[in-house]
C-alpha cells in the first residue's frame, strides 16, 4: 500500500472523528443560538412570563461609591451583603438623591438593587424571566455593550469563552465538512452546485446591502 495513501486515510479518519465530536459538543449551544436568532430576528417573545419579587435588607455602605465601571468594586460589596449574584451593569451613584442603583443581570433573572444611602437600606427587585428571555440574554452576552467595562462575574466570563469556543468549533466544522465532502466523489457535482448557489446568493445580498 502506498504510504501517502495510508497517511491521507488516517488524516481523514481523524478529521471525521473530530468533526463528529466537536459537532456533538457544540450542538446544544448551536440550538441556543439558532432558536434565539429566530426570536431576535422577529422581536418575538412567545409566552412571556415574568415574576417580580420585592425585598429589602439593611446594608453597610462601602467607601468609594462611583458611577459606571469604577463603581463595580463597591457594588460587589453590597451584592455580597444582600446575597445577590450576577453581572453588574451600569452602576448609578446619585448623590443628589442619596441613592445608589445597581442593575444586576444573569440568565433568567434581572435584579435592581436600589440603596438608600441615608437609611442604609437596599430595596431589591428581582424579576424572574422565562426560557425565551434567557436564550435571548445568552445570545447577546457578552456582546458589544459596555465595551470599556470588563466582565465582572465569573459565569459571564465563562459564557464568553464558551460562546467563542462555539464559534471556533463551528468554523472548524465548516472547514472539515468541506474537506470530508470533497472526499465523496458521488456528492461532488451536487455539492459544487450548492456551494455555487450559496456563494451567489451571498454575493448578491452583500453587493446590495454593503453598497
Amino acid at each position: 500500500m502506498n504510504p501517502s495513501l495510508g497517511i491521507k486515510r488516517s488524516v481523514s479518519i481523524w478529521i471525521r472523528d473530530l468533526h463528529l465530536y466537536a459537532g456533538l459538543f457544540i450542538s446544544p449551544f448551536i440550538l441556543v443560538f439558532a432558536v434565539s436568532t429566530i426570536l431576535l430576528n422577529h422581536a418575538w417573545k412567545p409566552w412571556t412570563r415574568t415574576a417580580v419579587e420585592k425585598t429589602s435588607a439593611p446594608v453597610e455602605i462601602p467607601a468609594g461609591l462611583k458611577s459606571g465601571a469604577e463603581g463595580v468594586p463597591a457594588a460587589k460589596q453590597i451584592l455580597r451583603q444582600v446575597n445577590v449574584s450576577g453581572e453588574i451593569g451600569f452602576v448609578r451613584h446619585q448623590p443628589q438623591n442619596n441613592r445608589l442603583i445597581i442593575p444586576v443581570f444573569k440568565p433568567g433573572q434581572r435584579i435592581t438593587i436600589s440603596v438608600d444611602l441615608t437609611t442604609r437600606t437596599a430595596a431589591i427587585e428581582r424579576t424572574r424571566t422565562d426560557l425565551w428571555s434567557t436564550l435571548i440574554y445568552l445570545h447577546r452576552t457578552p456582546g458589544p455593550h459596555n465595551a470599556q467595562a470588563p466582565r465582572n462575574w465569573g459565569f459571564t466570563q465563562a459564557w464568553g469563552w464558551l460562546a467563542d469556543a462555539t464559534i471556533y468549533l463551528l468554523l472548524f466544522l465548516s472547514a472539515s465538512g468541506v474537506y470530508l465532502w470533497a472526499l465523496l466523489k458521488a456528492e461532488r457535482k451536487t455539492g459544487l452546485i450548492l456551494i455555487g448557489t450559496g456563494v451567489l446568493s451571498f454575493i448578491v445580498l452583500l453587493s446590495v446591502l454593503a453598497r
Partner: protein
Amino acid sequence: MTEMQPQIRSPRFFRAFETWNRKFHIYLGLYFLLFIWLFSISGLVLNHPRWQFAQFWPTREQTSFEQSFQAPVATGNLPMAQDLMRQFKIDGEIYQLTNNVEQGQFAFRVMKPRTRFLIKADLKSQRATIERIRVNGWGVLYALHLFSGVRMENPELKRDWFWTKLWSFSMDALAVGLVVMVLGGVYMWYQLKPKRGWGLVVLALGILSCGLFVFGLSRLP
C-alpha cells in the same frame, strides 16, 4: 393507520431517511458555508469590542450636506420618509421617525450595513440636512450580524426595505438549517455504534455546560 405503520417502520423507509438525512447535512452545510463564516466572524467581533484591528467607528467617514425637496404628497410618517428618500436617491431601512408638525420638523434615520443617514427635513422651508456616515468592512460585518430591521425593545418597528426582509429571511433560513444539521448530525452519530460511548460523553458535556447557563444560573441567589 394500520396500513401505514408497517410501511413507515420498514428498513427501506429508514434507509431512505438515513440517505437523505446525510445528504441534507452535507448540502445545508455547503449552501450556508459563507453565511456561517460571516455570522461566526461577526459574532467574534461583537464579543470582543476591544479588538483594535476590528475598530470601525473611529475611522468612519462622515459627511453632511443640504438639499432642497418638494413637499411630500404622501401622508403618514413612513410614506413621507419614503417620498423624501426617492427625491434624495437614498435607499435603506427607515427607523427613528420623528415628526414635529407644529414646527414643521421631520427627521428620520436610514440604515444600511455600510452607510447610515440622518435626515432632518424642514417641511416649511423645504430644505433638508443630510448627514451620511460610512464605515469600513468591519463595520459592515458588525452591522450585518444585527441587521434585522426590528428591535426586541421596540416590537412595533416593522421592516420596510425589501433587502432587509430578504436578509432577515436568510438569517431565519440559516437558523433553521443549523437546527436541521444539528438534529440530523446527532441522529447520524447515534447510528454509529462504535462511536456511541465517547459521543455520549462529549454530548453530555455539551448539554451539561450549556444547561448550566440556560437552566442552572437562574437558581443562584
